[in-house]
């Protein structure tokens, strides 16, 4: 284990170009997918928490079910859709970072929407009652609920980001772990495990955790400011 820690710091200090490229791809995929999932999922969660319409509870149940969507299943479905013979094969997205981002969006958006809905549902009745009492424009209500949820939205975003940066099943299938193209930290860790290079794999895992720690720390500072 100590040798893995030593290896991790040696790798960071070495400034290895391949490693830097893998870290950059990992960042690109995790940030792009988690931010998109936040932009899609948070409004959806807020709307589900504030709107009343028939079939709402069914939608919420479906959403919560998709929070547990197995990444490998999502990966296989996307592979079938985007591979050469699939209906979207002409887009030539298979084995690309873009499709890895799409896969992560599919996996994370329900998580972001479900967690947002869960929190916003608790705050929405007070916001609705106050807004109605003041005869505010009803379109302001979702914005007010979102504003009341901003602290939690950062935590929810972090949950999505952590899922994106640590996920391996879907990105392996749709990305193919191609060096200098779609290789990310988790797929390279899995590759090193398969080739028996455990120390190197754990060292990469430690680097992944350090990246995650840095992002969490930055988000924590933003949350402190919002308190």
């Amino acid at each position, binding site marked *: 284990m100590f040798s893995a820690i030593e290896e991790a710091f040696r790798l960071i200090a070495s400034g290895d170009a391949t490693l830097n490229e893998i870290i950059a791809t990992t960042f690109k995929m995790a940030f792009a997918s988690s931010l998109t999932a936040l932009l899609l999922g948070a409004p959806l969660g807020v709307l589900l928490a504030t709107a009343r319409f028939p079939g709402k509870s069914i939608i919420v149940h479906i959403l919560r079910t998709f929070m547990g969507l197995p990444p490998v299943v999502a990966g296989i479905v996307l592979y079938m859709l985007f591979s050469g013979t699939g209906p979207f094969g002409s887009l030539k997205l298979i084995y690309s970072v873009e499709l890895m981002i799409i896969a992560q969006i599919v996996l994370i958006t329900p998580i972001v929407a479900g967690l947002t809905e869960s929190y916003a549902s608790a705050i929405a009745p007070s*916001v609705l*009652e*106050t807004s*109605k*009492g*003041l*005869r505010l424009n009803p379109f*302001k209500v979702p914005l007010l609920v979102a*504003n*009341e949820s901003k602290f939690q939205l950062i935590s929810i975003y972090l949950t999505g980001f952590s899922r994106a940066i640590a996920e391996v099943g879907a990105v392996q299938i749709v990305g193919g772990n191609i060096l200098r193209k779609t290789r990310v930290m988790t797929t390279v860790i899995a590759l090193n495990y398969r080739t028996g290079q455990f120390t190197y794999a754990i060292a990469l895992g430690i680097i992944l955790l350090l990246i995650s720690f840095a992002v969490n720390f930055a988000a924590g500072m933003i949350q402190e400011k919002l308190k």
Partner: protein
Amino acid sequence: MIEIENLKKIYAGRTVLDIESLKFEEGGRYALIGANGSGKSTLLKILAGIIPPDEGKVNIPKNLKLGYAPQKAFAFSMSIKKNVALACPKEQKNRIADIISKMGLTHLAKKRADKLSGGETQRLALARLLVADRNFILLDEPTASMDINYSLATEEFLNDYINEHAATLIIATHSIVQAARLGKEIIFLHEGKVLERGADILDNPQNEETIKFLEYYGKK
């Protein structure tokens, strides 16, 4: 005229409000009194359109500009000034500082409203409600968390506002003295029903339940 007919509200199989007929004159001042669970808050919520009745009709003239402050005042997590501005019509923004001052909140105007005490939050809720011109005001225990000085000052401000706007006031309160000061007519609710109403029921109650209630709250 604000009219209620055959109104019923049922929660979990229990009828919490059952009013055959109730009328409020425009420009009138009404105080709803009654024990916890008597239906005061439910009645106000139905009048405010917060919750729908299970049965019956509520007729509120369209010209009335309604404003309702719930029992548990909620402050948005933004400054007091922004909270008040949220409910203030664009052309009346000059009123914001004035009403914040009248509610004794000037020194806190830039403070986050969700960090206020219960009494301060109630003062903010009233400032936010009354920064706009309203002529149908529904208040649910508006001074319950305030100390005596702020409570009296708020009542005075409410009196002035209601006179100035020729507004209809319906206030739910546990305070018999507040009901007497703000309400020209008192409505006593018990287990969801209106048992007695009138200008002098605090001094001359006829119903047994009203007498019991007033005795408990120290009026008789």
